[in-house]
């Protein structure tokens, strides 16, 4: 299903161009007082979370919720929110490094959160909720047997072997400024023999088939568990925090404050292990995000 993204690449592209063309003053229209559209990225995690928001909001209010899935990347999610095509989404604090506004460079978790909350409020008019309690950041992972063979525990341990290793990464990491490949190799002082920017789901396939040796994974991705990958500790603390939060337009929240009450129920309630398990249910066990989301809410007494 995810490949739809690339078939519709041109469409997305023109959408993003159109959005940037009319940018600046924010959107108008859409989002009547009784309906809400939640946008999601292409991968599973925001889709499960969106189903949770939807279930909670529809359970506790009269607002009807629509989900708009498969927005190609988080900057596009933000643009769609800005133009009011969607009013709500899931974002990660590290998003501030994507150059939406000026920031002070830091890797402190609380400080990054503060900048995200203040910056998006001031520059975009978004309310950034407090985090759910899990991070979905980057982590270097290797196949178990490779970890054993070279005795790899930390990212620094890779330095000695990196030039013989092939690295599989998602399609945009090589282009990232603050926490991308260039910054990384400067920071840790080594480069990999070859890098393959790929669709992230294919990266796991490739590592399982030994086409790549090292995978830059997302920490809550079930692929780590599924393909029995060993996570290497970011010993020099290169990657910034990526705490997940619900984000909503301020004006939507003012009109429908009951949304805030509903979504706040999730704040601090989901840790990384839980989120990974939920992702695993969908990605590996092929269950519906909606089913998994509702099941979780019921188990935790948030839904009857």
């Amino acid at each position, binding site marked *: 299903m*995810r*490949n739809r993204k690339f078939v519709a*690449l041109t469409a997305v592209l023109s959408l993003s161009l159109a959005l940037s063309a009319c940018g600046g003053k924010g959107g108008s229209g859409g989002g009547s007082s009784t309906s809400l559209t939640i946008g999601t990225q292409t991968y599973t995690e925001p889709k499960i979370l969106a189903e949770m928001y939807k279930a909670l909001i529809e359970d506790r209010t009269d607002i009807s919720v629509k989900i708009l899935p498969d927005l190609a990347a988080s900057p*596009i999610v933000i643009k769609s929110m800005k133009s009011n095509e969607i009013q709500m989404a899931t974002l990660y604090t590290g998003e501030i490094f994507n150059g*939406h506004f000026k920031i002070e460079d830091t890797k402190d978790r609380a400080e990054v959160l503060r900048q995200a909350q203040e910056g998006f409020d001031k520059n975009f008019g978004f309310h950034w909720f407090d985090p759910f309690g899990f991070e979905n950041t980057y982590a270097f992972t290797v196949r178990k047997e490779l970890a054993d063979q070279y005795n790899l525990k930390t990212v620094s341990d890779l330095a000695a072997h990196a030039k013989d290793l092939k690295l599989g990464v998602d399609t945009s990491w090589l282009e*990232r400024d603050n926490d991308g490949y260039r910054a990384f190799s400067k920071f840790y002082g080594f480069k990999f023999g070859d890098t393959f920017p*790929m669709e992230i789901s*294919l990266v796991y396939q*490739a590592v399982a088939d030994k086409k790549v040796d090292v995978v830059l994974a997302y920490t809550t991705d079930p692929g780590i568990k599924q393909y029995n990958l060993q996570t290497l500790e970011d010993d020099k603390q290169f990657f910034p925090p990526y705490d997940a939060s619900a984000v909503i337009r301020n004006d939507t929240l003012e009109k429908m404050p009951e949304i805030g009450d509903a979504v706040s129920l999730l704040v601090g309630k989901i840790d990384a292990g839980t989120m990974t398990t939920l992702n695993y249910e969908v990605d590996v066990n092929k269950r519906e995000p909606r089913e998994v989301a509702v099941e979780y809410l019921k188990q935790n007494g948030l839904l009857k």
Partner: protein
Amino acid sequence: MLRSDWLANYADFWRDRYADIGTAALEHLTISATAIALGSLVAIPLGMLLASNRIRWLHTLVFTIANIFQTVPSLALLAILIPLLGIGVKPAIFALFLYAILPILRNTYAGFSSVDPALVESAKGMGYGTVQRLLAIQFPLAFPYIMSGIRMTTVYIISWTTLASLIGAGGLGQLIVSGMGVNKEELIVTGALAAIVLALVADRLLGALEKRFTRKARTVTRETSYV
């Protein structure tokens, strides 16, 4: 003010990244061209073969397979190809090659079927062997169809080659996709524009090629003289 800022930044971007852009464009072109060349090599003879016989089940079989190739989602196809061809350029070319087969096959078949049966019989009756007839009579007459199939396929394969970025083969798709991921419009715009330019140039070149080869036979019914 804002616009000239943007243009200045965009010029800077080109200065910094022209080598990367060139590499991406070259990768893109190589992948597309190889896929189309392979697709033509397989689809044209196959189309000729089908057009020269009436074995019903064979037609059904070939077109069904080609259709299936066409409908397999690219990500699923690439996932299947990893164990066989690994990652990088090879699986990307192979996937695009599969996508290129059907439209070229269809046009070749249509081209051959469009040849007046009276001409075919005339050729046969004068002593053309089957292969000679295919190459000397039917192929030149079907050529405009085949060529338009290749042109059409080229344009859309060039746009589909953005899927190469899914499997580590780079290309202009890499600029577009990563540009979307990191909020850098200059990457998106550059990748898209370059892909459009490639498609247009390729289309023009093939068009000129087609004209060169078919100009003569097309000077029809201009002047008609009477006995």
